[in-house]
């Protein structure tokens, strides 16, 4: 197996794990962790495609990773702020307790 295929397998596994966490967990913070895993799986892809692809003088892959790390940090900050706000109302981070909106 060449290194690119290995890395892509790793990133697909990470992405699936993150998606599994998002779909099965009921705790908002653990879902946030799942989303971060999915974003990091994409970062591995960018670096792998850049490293094992044809030479890329514009460094698009690493650029993508730099920006996505910064955005993931901003997203975590916004997410935790929102979770804290919800916690003030419900005293929990459990999504099953969120039922004030319905048709």
């Amino acid at each position: 197996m060449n290194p690119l295929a290995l890395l892509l397998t790793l990133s697909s596994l990470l992405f699936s794990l993150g998606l599994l966490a998002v779909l099965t967990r009921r705790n908002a913070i653990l879902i946030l962790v799942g989303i971060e895993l999915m974003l990091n799986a994409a970062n591995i892809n960018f670096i792998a495609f850049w490293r094992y692809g044809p030479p890329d003088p514009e460094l698009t892959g690493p650029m993508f990773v730099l920006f996505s790390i910064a955005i993931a940090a901003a997203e975590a900050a916004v997410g935790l702020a929102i979770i804290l706000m919800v916690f003030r109302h419900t005293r929990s981070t459990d999504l099953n307790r969120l039922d004030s909106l319905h048709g």
Partner: protein
Amino acid sequence: MQLMPEAVLVVTALVLLGMAVAYESKTLKPFPVNSAIGIATVGILLAIAALWCPPLKLNGDSSLIASDGLARLFKGLVLGLGLLAICIPPARREIPQIGEYYALMLFALTGLLLAAGTNHLLFLFVALELASLSLYLLAGFPRTAKASEASLKYFLFGGVSAAFMLFGMSFLYGFAHTAKLTEIATALAVGPPSALAIAGLLMVLVGLAFKMAAAPFHYWAPDVYQGAPATTVALVSAASKAVGMVVLVRLLLIGFHSAGGSASWGGMLPGWTIWLAILSAVSILFGNLLALAQTSMRRLLAYSAVANTGYLLVALAANGRDAAGSALFYVIVYGLATLGALAVTAAVERDRGNDSISSFAGLVKRSPFQAVSLLVFLTSLAGIPPLAGFFGKFAMFSTAMAATASGEKSGLAWLVGLGAIMSAVSLYYYLSVLKQAYVKDAAEDSVSSSAPCLPVFHALSVAIPAVLLVLLGLFPSILLAPISKAVIDSLGL
């Protein structure tokens, strides 16, 4: 200067933030809403004026910051929709931090403008995230359980969609070794698209479908529409949907035009048009059928948003220039109608305390102005001539019938037929709101016989969309002609 409007918006947001902090720390009173709206309005008007700055000639290619016709036209239109959204004032004491709220509105608009004007995947991702992160917060500003729940749901769904989009973009980068849409198109022209490109495009489309609230990725929409402040909902439903359409048109018609395949009945060829056709059919069915059962006006508008995304995707699935132009026309018309309907809903909420459809009862007696405007908005959404919504839907459906990539005419008839039948169904729920407003009398115990006079800003955000919808219905070419010119300029198909 290509980025002048965005720069003006950011500077205005910072000035607004600074003034609010200074005022609040000096007087210990909350910043007045009207001054915040005034400053934000001035900023947006300056940004619209800045659109006329002559673009700088850049060395090399300009895919990062496109200054083509589509970018300029839609930056102007999105700024206009944003201005109308900002004019809907929040309910009394709904939002404690006024300065921060309007500054974030301007940041969200900045992100939307940047996203409308780029042909580069990385820039697109960053711009969309700037807009989305601001919108998640804007949904949760009121200190109520409902608003924070709406904000959390919006954030979680949006976060997953962003992860999907980034993962898909990494596959597209792996396929073409570039993030520029024009170069991706060249890579696709060489041979049939590889599995990598198909998987990448599919995941990016899933991400965008979340943002556009296409079924089955629409679960956040009803809750956000119901729980978030009306101003935020107006921005999400009008401006952010218009930008979503521009992004889809750029991505699919500039980057992936040759990989479209065909979604015509019986003559299907593999490609993204089939996925769009399925997404569109599901959205049209789900949106319209679920809207029938709603008792809350805001949730009804959310499901109507899902259905209208479906209509828009019908035109995109035709994979042609004319159809794309008519979809871009309809998204503006739809934005005006839904924004106006939300402004009327906000006024009714202010008067009655809730947004249930029964609280619209007797609206024509309480406020003829609001009732007539609501008539214009809802009949335009339902697509009744001579309003702009009729012309927009008609143009979309007829161009989708006329042009399919495989050359055979009326291949998309199955999808257009579904759209036409379901928009007849949609008449039922739009008219049931109008029945409340015009035929039913308000309940006996409701005291006020006439609604309180609206603030000037709020009245403008009701009146301007109504006038524009009538005007665009009678003379659609004043918007359609510039849009088709911009589409030819940008896509050059």
